[in-house]
Structures are given as structure tokens and as C-alpha cells.
């Protein structure tokens, strides 16, 4: 589904992404783990088209998207969420999602008909909110939602673009156990239908969800394998997991 070859990104002296190869198979949840500053967010920024890579190619669903902009990658079915919640704070929850629907319902050069009463946008928006359990909060202005709800809203917005693949940057960041549990359930319900590249620090969530895991350290992918293989991998234990995780 997503094939990353020889991806590189430097910030001055720091090599944030160092010759990374990743192959995400259709339908799987592929987790990327690694210590703080390993380059996980940078990788997502490159894959989503927000940040230009120094070198490397990205194949998505069979076509080369290396030169595509962020918006056209989204239109091709590659959606993302942000590590630091990025929503439209002054829009209601439903308006946030409706905008995502609108973005994928042809162009927005429509200057006359009111958008906020357009059933073509409201209906799918409602559906996406239901999927993440936010249906009752549809009319709340986003800035008044709890942190956990805002994280769910991010997912709903990504889902509303009807993606083939999701790039999720620490969806559980800053959540309590209860909220994390709900997020795990949400992601589980998507499994199989949507390919997911999941960045997450919460190891319980990673091992509960992932089919395969890639470990990123100092911008380099040092290992890829099934959860069991990764648990057993010596390099990984030394570099990252620590013995108590094994």
C-alpha cells in the first residue's frame, strides 16, 4: 500500500530521517516506535507531503506520490492526524468534520449555496462522528471539547476524507487509560478496512493493535517485524525497549 524508499531528511547537522525503507502492506496496522526525537513526526510530515524530503521516493497505492502536495495526497486517500491536536478550534465538532467531507466532495469553488445546511456534507459528517463516539457532541465548539474528545475529532476528520490509509501521530498522546481504551477500540474497528501507519508511545496500545512494528532510532529504521519478533530483538531491547518490557 505504501512503499517508502531511501527517505532522507536533514535539519542542519541533525539527520532526522536516515535512509528509511518501509513497506506497509494493505490492510495492516503498522506501528512505528522509537524514543523521543527519533524522527517519527518528521517521517509522517514527509509522508503526508507537508515537508519536502531531501531524497527518497514514496509509492502509494501503486503510484509515485513523491512530488505531490499535501492536499493532493489527501485527495488520493492518504489522511493524517497530528501529534499536537490540530483542529478548527472556532468551528463546531460537526463543522470540523463537514469541512473534511467538503474537501473531498469535488472542489470548493462554490460561491452561493449555504454549506452549513448542505445534507451532502452534514450526513457523512454525522456518520464519521458516530464512528468515533462523538455524535452527541456534534454541536459543541471544538475548543470546548475535552482533550480526549479533540483527539477523537482528529480521527473523525481523517475518516471523513474516506482515506485508504491513515497516518496517525500518537493518537493517544496525553490521554487517560479510559480515553486510550476508547481510542484502541476505535482503531480496532477500522482495522482491515483502512491501512494504518501508527506512531505511538503507549506500548500496550501498540502491542494490542499492530500487525507489524518498525523501530526508529536516530532517524534509522533498525528493525521491522511482528510484535513478538520485536520483543525478542536484541538490538531493539538495547536501543529502546529496556529489559523490563520484554
Amino acid at each position, binding site marked *: 500500500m505504501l512503499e517508502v524508499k531511501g527517505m532522507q531528511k536533514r535539519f542542519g547537522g541533525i539527520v532526522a530521517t536516515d535512509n528509511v525503507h518501509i513497506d506497509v502492506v494493505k490492510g495492516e496496522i503498522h506501528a512505528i516506535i522509537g524514543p523521543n526525537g527519533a524522527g517519527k513526526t518528521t517521517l509522517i510530515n514527509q509522508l503526508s507531503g507537508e515537508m519536502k524530503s531531501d531524497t527518497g521516493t514514496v509509492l502509494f497505492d501503486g503510484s509515485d506520490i513523491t512530488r505531490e502536495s499535501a492536499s493532493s495526497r489527501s485527495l488520493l486517500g492518504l489522511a493524517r492526524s*497530528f501529534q499536537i491536536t490540530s483542529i478548527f478550534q472556532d468551528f463546531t465538532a460537526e463543522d470540523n468534520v463537514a469541512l473534511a467531507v467538503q474537501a473531498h466532495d469535488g472542489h470548493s469553488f462554490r460561491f452561493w449555496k449555504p454549506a452549513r445546511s448542505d445534507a451532502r456534507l452534514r450526513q457523512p459528517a454525522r456518520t464519521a462522528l458516530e464512528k468515533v463516539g462523538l455524535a452527541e457532541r456534534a454541536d459543541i465548539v471544538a475548543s470546548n471539547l475535552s482533550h480526549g474528545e479533540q483527539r477523537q475529532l482528529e480521527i473523525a476528520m481523517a475518516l471523513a476524507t474516506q482515506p485508504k490509509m491513515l497516518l496517525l501521530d500518537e493518537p493517544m498522546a496525553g490521554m487517560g487509560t479510559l480515553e486510550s481504551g476508547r481510542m484502541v477500540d476505535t482503531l480496532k474497528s477500522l482495522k482491515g478496512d483502512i491501512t494504518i501507519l501508527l506512531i505511538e508511545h503507549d506500548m500496550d496500545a501498540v502491542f494490542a493493535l499492530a500487525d507489524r512494528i518498525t523501530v526508529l532510532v536516530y532517524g534509522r529504521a533498525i528493525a521491522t517485524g511482528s510484535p513478538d519478533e520485536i520483543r525478542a530483538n536484541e538490538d531493539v531491547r538495547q536501543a529502546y525497549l529496556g529489559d523490563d518490557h520484554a
Partner: protein
Amino acid sequence: MTLSLRTIVPAAVLVLLGLVPVIAGAIDEPFYIDLFSRMLILAIGASSLNLLLGYGGMVSFGHAVYLGIGAYVVGIFSFHSVEDGIEWMASGYVQIPAALIASAVFGLIIGAISLRTRGVYFIMITLAFAQMVYFLGVGIEYYGADDGLTLYGRSEFGDWLDLNESSTLYYVCFVALLLTLFVSYKLINSRFGIAIRSIKSNERRTRAIGIPSYRYRLTCFVIAATICGFAGALLANRTDFVSPDMMHWTRSGDLIIMVVLGGMGTLFGPLLGTVGFLLVEEILSSYTEYWQLFFGPLLILIVIFGKGGIDGLIQALANLVERKPKAAAQSRDGA
């Protein structure tokens, strides 16, 4: 749209504006028609700037340039219609579309380049372009340079619409303002308007969601320029005169003040701001020639204490009267 103080006040202002020629005629003070027609025209200009400033988050510091371009098209056409005897150039049916097209083209060129930048750079580059056009006006001797150009005649629309009749011109401006408000209302609530507002709210997210922001910002820029060019064409007719001074950077600053004073990103804010600005200017300047000395601090007070400008003050007043919690009333944006 519920019937709140926020809609009643602008509606009342519009009704009063609509009655100006009647009142001016009754008290025999035709001077008022002149004063208030300028208000109507600048309110159109401020409304167009509000599309950029209030809804699109684009702080254009050169918006008066489109007033100038619209005005100059009328002035130049009028000039050639007499000097070279080209009759059709006196026609309003030619002048107005030409003014719209010229300001759209300038908007397209200036916007296409300026919108590559952000923040302070955007402010500076729009200002720089406006200054360039300003100096172009100052430089062209043929069209009067900095002395400007006196119109040989107002735009001709035939017998049914004689702009030389001052109340006719006034009502043309009045209808144009209503039209501008209506078009703005439709625009900001359309898919296009929602896209523009989302870019202002969070551009990074807007792109990630699949909306290529540049082309929507540019379209918004061109629309705002065109509407402002229309206001410029009216201004030339009202004043019977065009000059580079119309697009001096302080004129652009005035437009920004009108929008901020009235309430950015609200439908009627620019109208209220323009009315407030020009009335205060008129009143203060009748007392002292140093009126700007008092005007500045007054503006600062309103902006600091009445967040959201005059519209914000009305909102606060409405909340006080109805004792409604702030949050409930705030969710009603876009109108």
C-alpha cells in the same frame, strides 16, 4: 438569523442611510448627501477588505489601490471620450465593467505574488505594490500626475439613470452597498467561504484535509479587489475627480481601521466601522484641526475595551440586556 441587537442595529443604520436624501431635502442641507454617499462607497470598500482581513486572515495593507484603479478607469475613459471624441468611452456600461476587470487583473497579479508570503512579509509586499501603483499615478503626466484628473462627466447610463442627479447617484451607491452585503453574506456561508475561513483558522490542517489553500486565497483576493474596484468607480463619479491620493497608503490604513473598528469577520462590522469612522472624523474635525490627535486614542480604547469592535460592543450590550451567558451567544458567527 435571529432578530438580535446585532442585526437590529445595522438594519436601523441601513434604513437611516436609505432616508438620507429625503432628510437632507427636508432640512435643505444637500451637503449631507455628499457626506453620506462617501460613507456608502467606503463601506463597500471596507466590506471587501473584510473578506480578506476578517474571513481570510489576509492583512492586505494596500487595499485602497483598488479604489484608485476603479476610479482611474472611469477618469481615464471619461478623459478620452472628450479629448479624443471616443463617445462610447463615456458610457457607464463600458466604464463599470472595465473598472471591474482592471481591478481584478491587478488583484490577480498582486495576489499571485503576495500570497506566496505570510505574516509581516505579506503586509509589506501588499503595501509595496500599492505604493508602486500610487507612484505610477503620480508619474503619469498625461493623466494629471499628482494633480489628478477632473472628470469631464459622470458615467452615462442613458435617460433612465442620471448620475448627475445627486440623489440618484446616492441611491446607486446605496443599492451597491446592499448588493455587496448580500453577496458577502452568500459568499462567506458558501463552501468557498467555509474553505476561506478554515484557512484562516488553521491553514496547515486545511491543507492536510485536502484543500489546496493558495488557489482559494487567491480567488478571495481577486474577488475583494474587484468589489473594491467597483467602489472606486463610484467614488470617481461622486467626487468628479480622481487622483493618486485615493490610493495613498494612509487610505489603505483607513480601510483597515474601519474594518477593525466595526468588527473583523462580521457581516455588518465594516459598515458600522465606516459609519463610526467618518462620523467621528466629521465631528472632531469641526472642533479642531488636530482631530487625529483625539481620534487615535479613541480607536485604541475601542479596540482594547470593545473586543470585536463596534459589533463586539453591541454583542456585549445584548448579552447584558438578555443576561445571556457569553458562550451561547458566541456560537452564532458568520452573520
